């Protein structure tokens, strides 16, 4: 059925839908986040659920303390190397379909604390992330904006076909290996199947030759 006909019918009081639309509509409006705060951004996440910003308007106010009941992980704050295995374990414990929002600079790349010896340079080294919100910390509105972006993403997913989401494709993994504590660093220090940074051409910069720095 094409879109104009659907709208015309809706005006007449007749709702038509497909299974896919109904399925996506249900999923996107009942995202249950994991009650999981790491650092500064967690306070802004709490502020988002409070009266002023009221995340309940998006059906995402039911913060679940248990990963088994949650389908959205908002990584809000610095992921340290000591915490990273636990974060990944929590992610593995969440049932599919599951989504990850990487909230704030630290969760994306380590942020300002990037050069610290105990700071993981981005949670996407170990688990796939759907939406990134830059900011330190992002405003509550920014989190709502990210939530809407995620809802849009869910809405556009197809139930069948090659581009169907991960939870409908049995060949793709839904659990990821948990790194081990090593003598100097986490082992391995990233999951090469997930983390594909582009190569930065350092020679292009030429900083050290020009002596500008």
């Amino acid at each position, binding site marked *: 059925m094409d879109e104009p006909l659907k709208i015309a019918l809706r005006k007449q009081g007749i709702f038509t839908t497909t299974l896919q639309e109904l399925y996506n509509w249900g999923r996107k409006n009942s995202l249950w986040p994991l009650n999981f705060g790491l650092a500064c951004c967690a306070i802004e996440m709490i502020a988002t659920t409070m009266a002023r910003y009221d995340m309940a308007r998006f059906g995402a106010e039911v913060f679940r303390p248990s990963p088994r009941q949650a389908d959205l992980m908002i990584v809000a704050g610095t992921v340290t190397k000591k915490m990273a295995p636990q974060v990944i374990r929590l992610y593995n414990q969440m049932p599919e379909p599951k989504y990850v929002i990487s909230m704030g600079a630290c969760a994306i790349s380590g942020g300002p604390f990037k050069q610290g010896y*105990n700071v993981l340079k981005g949670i996407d080294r170990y688990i796939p992330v759907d939406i990134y919100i830059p900011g330190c910390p992002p405003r509550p509105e920014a989190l709502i904006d990210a939530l809407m972006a995620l809802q849009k993403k869910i809405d556009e997913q197809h139930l069948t076909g090659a581009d169907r989401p991960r939870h409908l494709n049995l060949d793709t993994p839904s659990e990821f290996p948990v790194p081990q*504590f090593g003598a100097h660093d986490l082992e391995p220090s990233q999951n090469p199947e997930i983390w594909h*940074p582009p190569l930065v051409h*350092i020679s292009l910069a030429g*900083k*050290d030759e020009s002596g500008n720095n």
Partner: protein
Amino acid sequence: MNLETIKSEIEASVSGCRLEIIPNASPSEQHSLLVDAARAVAVARFLRDAAHLRFDFCSNVTGVDWPSKEISEKIKVKKILDGVEQEVEETRKTQSLGYLEAVYHLYSVEKKHGPFVLRLRTEDRENRAHLPSLTPVWRSAEFQEREIFDLFGIHFDGHPDLRRILMWDEFEDHPMRRDYVEPNDYEYEPTAHDEVLQKAKQHQNGVGC
């Protein structure tokens, strides 16, 4: 509250302890007292219990790393040159022995004075990095001494529960030491310069890209 008088009082009541006043050149004028490790607990007890001092509140405990460094000093040496004794200036380079330091900031809740700064030094940075724990005197040192053990590697003898506090137990390094080498995770450094640029370059070369 004069540091000199406190020093002589300690010397009078704790027999055989060596104390040294470390001056502080900054406008804060918080001079400190270096106590030899062997008598540190007795000195701490005295500071806590002496009726007019009553430093009952140990606020801040921290470590400082002073690695060994090269000191070049000019010395006048008498030498016989061409049969005549002459004074010749020579620069002699010596390697100063590095050490680790624990600094305690004491206040008095009862008398409302302070800070009194106490320093303890280890003999070296490696095998003899031991100090007596002051946790039996002030409980507030418990977590802070564990932190120093974790990050600097000073072993506090007599500490009730000395193990790593911030890093995981399998970790081997002492990251707050100045010669600590960070793990190589410089895969993506789009805005690198200075030190980070060097490390990112090393990483790329190491990986073979």
